[in-house]
């Protein structure tokens, strides 16, 4: 088997992976860095983030405000020591990106402009029109090209982590173009594999968001944390799930029901604010979980607008005017016209909540380290946790920068602590076994199940039972179904048994990852008998701090459902309180 030896190998070359690679290359140019991704870096899903990245920079803002917004927004499930580190590093990282040439939108005096975002008390979201993630990703990718020590392995799909003596030793990956397996030996591995939104049928997430990084760590014994917290973004196009950024509302867009009423005022986010003059942290600038839940409640009351793709509310941006929409929201306008046939300049756009982000992920501490020595994780695939039960919009782009860099520094510290390289025999044995398993999947005959069939059933189960509001019955049904799907997955047979760019094989592997992630979501959700942030139970409508001010940890079991454990939340200065989005009226 072809083998690549690196000091640090990074799986995933989106925002977090690229940031980690650059940090490593800058810290020590002699380090050998392997940057391995199933897609070319510029295809990574960071590119689809629109609104911006949060970091305190303006004079009227303070780190305390950012801390309070994040912790309260996360319904006190965030680890406060991690949030402290995050908000402190945030402005430094955004300035660093500026110094690498990111085309941030500007004020007239040449300073970086910021915009309002949901759940934020002050304007602190740095943005590049409505393609912020795209510009961050391309700035990082292009910047990374100047470091010869970063060796890229584009379109390599990592299949299994290799371990020896309870430490990480590397991993195996398939080169898509040849179908050949390659062994990556590395004393430290950083996983930046992104989220798993594709376990749901209606999502803003691209096709590649299949939880591969999460599943890699999970199967190697690292728990997945807080997986029940799945963020619905309130404003997706009903036809395709395409995201219309929260900046639509940050710039002054409003949400109305079929009667033209700005219904958020009826769900603890009022009173109504003047049209075109958005007030921070209230009404349309409430947090995503609350806004999506309000949609669901209105839907129950029959106040939504039926469309051929399901019920929708209206996002009205007409009062912003054509000039502002073109300057600040050009992509939003283009997408609305292209995919819905509605021009936001002249008409309100139908939107509905859509699965957007996983608050949960690979269990890491605030140094981005997992419990498995030598393994680190950052970005959406990781759960530090700064996002708690509900992430605030524009914290995730900053998170991937802050913790991408942090993971790199931690990996350096780990190497310097004298971590030994694994033995050749252990690596060879592990890699051969991994190749054997892959070959068995590729060549299996007589299987009764198909990738597309199982995937459809999984998505349907998740949408029906693990959506905005959940019940014991639904979740229990989902758990049974997902366990069954995992069992049936072993009887899958591929139609395509060739080597070169076999996407049938790729999708089968992705489905395996998704099923593991989906089961962790459902099991954690079933066990959390309370409502907090994005996890809302109709049968346990209140938050229960006595029993559930704790992180859920799903521990993998190859033959059975995961074991659920709990870990106390780190609380330093903010005791759990009431989330107030009344604009100071309560």
């Amino acid at each position, binding site marked *: 088997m072809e083998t690549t030896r690196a000091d640090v190998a990074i799986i995933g070359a989106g925002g977090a992976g690229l940031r980690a690679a650059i940090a490593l290359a800058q810290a020590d140019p002699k380090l050998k860095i392997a940057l391995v991704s199933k897609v070319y870096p510029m295809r990574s899903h960071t590119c689809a983030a629109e609104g911006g990245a949060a970091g305190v920079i303006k004079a009227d803002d303070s780190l305390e405000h950012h801390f309070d917004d994040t912790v309260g927004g996360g319904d006190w499930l965030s680890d406060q020591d991690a949030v402290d580190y995050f908000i402190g590093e945030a402005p430094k990282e955004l300035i660093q990106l500026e110094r690498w040439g990111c*085309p941030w939108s500007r004020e007239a005096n040449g300073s970086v402009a910021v915009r309002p975002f949901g759940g934020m008390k002050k304007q602190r979201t740095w943005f590049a029109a409505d393609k912020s993630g795209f510009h961050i990703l391309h700035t990082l990718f292009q910047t990374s090209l100047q470091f010869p020590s970063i060796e890229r392995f584009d379109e390599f799909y990592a299949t299994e982590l290799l371990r020896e003596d309870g430490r990480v030793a590397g991993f195996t990956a398939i080169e898509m173009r040849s179908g050949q397996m390659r062994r990556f030996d590395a004393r430290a591995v950083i996983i930046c594999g992104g989220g798993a939104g594709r376990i749901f049928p209606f999502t803003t997430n691209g096709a590649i968001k299949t939880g591969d990084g999460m599943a890699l760590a999970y199967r190697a014994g690292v728990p997945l944390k807080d997986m029940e917290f799945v963020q619905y973004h309130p404003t997706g196009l009903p036809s395709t799930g395409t995201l219309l950024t929260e900046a639509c509302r940050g710039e002054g867009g409003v949400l109305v029901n079929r009667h033209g009423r700005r219904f958020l005022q009826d769900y603890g986010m009022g009173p109504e604010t003047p049209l075109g003059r958005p007030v921070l942290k209230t009404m349309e600038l409430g947090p995503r979980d609350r806004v999506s839940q309000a949609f669901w409640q209105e839907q129950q009351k029959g106040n939504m607008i039926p469309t051929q793709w399901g019920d929708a509310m209206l996002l009205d941006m007409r009062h912003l005017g054509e000039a502002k929409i073109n300057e600040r929201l050009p992509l939003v306008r283009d997408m609305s016209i292209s995919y819905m046939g509605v021009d936001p300049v002249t008409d309100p756009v139908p939107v509905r909540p859509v699965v957007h982000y996983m608050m949960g992920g690979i269990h890491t501490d605030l140094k981005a380290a997992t419990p498995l020595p030598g393994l680190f994780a950052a970005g959406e695939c990781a759960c530090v946790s700064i996002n708690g039960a509900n992430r605030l919009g524009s914290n995730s782009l900053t998170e991937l920068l802050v913790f991408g860099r942090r993971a790199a520094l931690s990996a350096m510290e780990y190497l310097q602590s004298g971590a030994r390289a694994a033995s050749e025999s252990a690596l060879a044995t592990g890699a051969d076994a991994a190749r054997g398993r892959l070959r068995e999947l590729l060549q299996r005959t007589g299987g009764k199940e198909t990738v597309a069939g199982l995937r459809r059933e999984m998505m349907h189960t998740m949408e029906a039972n693990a959506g905005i509001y959940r019940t014991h019955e639904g979740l229990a049904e989902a758990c049974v179904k997902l366990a069954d799907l995992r069992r049936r997955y072993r009887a899958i047979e591929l139609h395509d048994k060739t080597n070169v760019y076999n996407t049938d094989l790729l999708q089968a592997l992705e489905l395996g990852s998704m099923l593991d992630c989906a089961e962790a979501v459902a099991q954690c959700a079933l066990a959390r008998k309370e409502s907090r942030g994005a996890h809302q139970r109709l049968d346990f409508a209140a938050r229960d701090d006595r029993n559930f001010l704790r992180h859920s940890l799903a521990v993998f079991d190859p033959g059975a459902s995961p074991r659920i454990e709990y870990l106390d939340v780190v609380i330093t200065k903010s005791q759990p309180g009431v989330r107030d989005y009344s604009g100071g009226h309560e």
Partner: protein
Amino acid sequence: MGERTVEFEVLRYNPEKDAAPHFQRYSVKCREEWVVLDALNHIKESVDPTLSYRWSCHMAVCGSCGMMVNGEPKLACKSFLRDYPGLIRVEPLRHFPVERDLVTVIDDFVAKLARVKPFLIPQPGAAQAGTGEYAQTPAQLKRYKQFTLCINCMLCYAACPEYGLIPEYIGPAVIALGHRWNEDSRDGGRAQRQEELAATNGVWDCSFVGACSEVCPEHVDPAAAIQQVKIKSTIDWYTEHLMPWLNK
């Protein structure tokens, strides 16, 4: 909105099975509002799982799904079936080797991109002064912003006959991205980039067909970037050779 049956002809090539590429016909029921990518996904899911192609974001920003649709380079996620009344012929992007089905080999583009140093090279002296943000006015931003919008989808390479005829040509997107940094008020690396941009296989391989800008899904206008680099390079040459006293 209704459904209709659409005929597709998709180029298939599996190097382990086929001596050469061939077209395969699919007749599929499609929803009226679908894009070509939706139809391909439907084919892969329900008709033929062996079909290979790249895609991800479905919102024209990741640049994965570039392909030839009825002979024109297009993003499959932005090619609406309503614009194609008859048979739809889907092929891999022209001018790139075909790895498998609709998947092309793009090593050439990726290597060329690195050659133009598409990153901020600080101006000597000034940049090291502080660690804070650089100031940049909205007007300075506007000057290069358009060229930052390249999603590296490579439709422009598939449209450019010069790239087809001269594979060494560095190509529209790469020049636009090099120019993007040259025009950035924070950058001081133009002289270094000129080694590639102003070379024979840089802008001077371009004969201004203009197709790159016509097919660009993000309205980057690479042809404009190329002509601007040509003019600046020409001025460079004159100042260097005819007005040497202007050099420093």
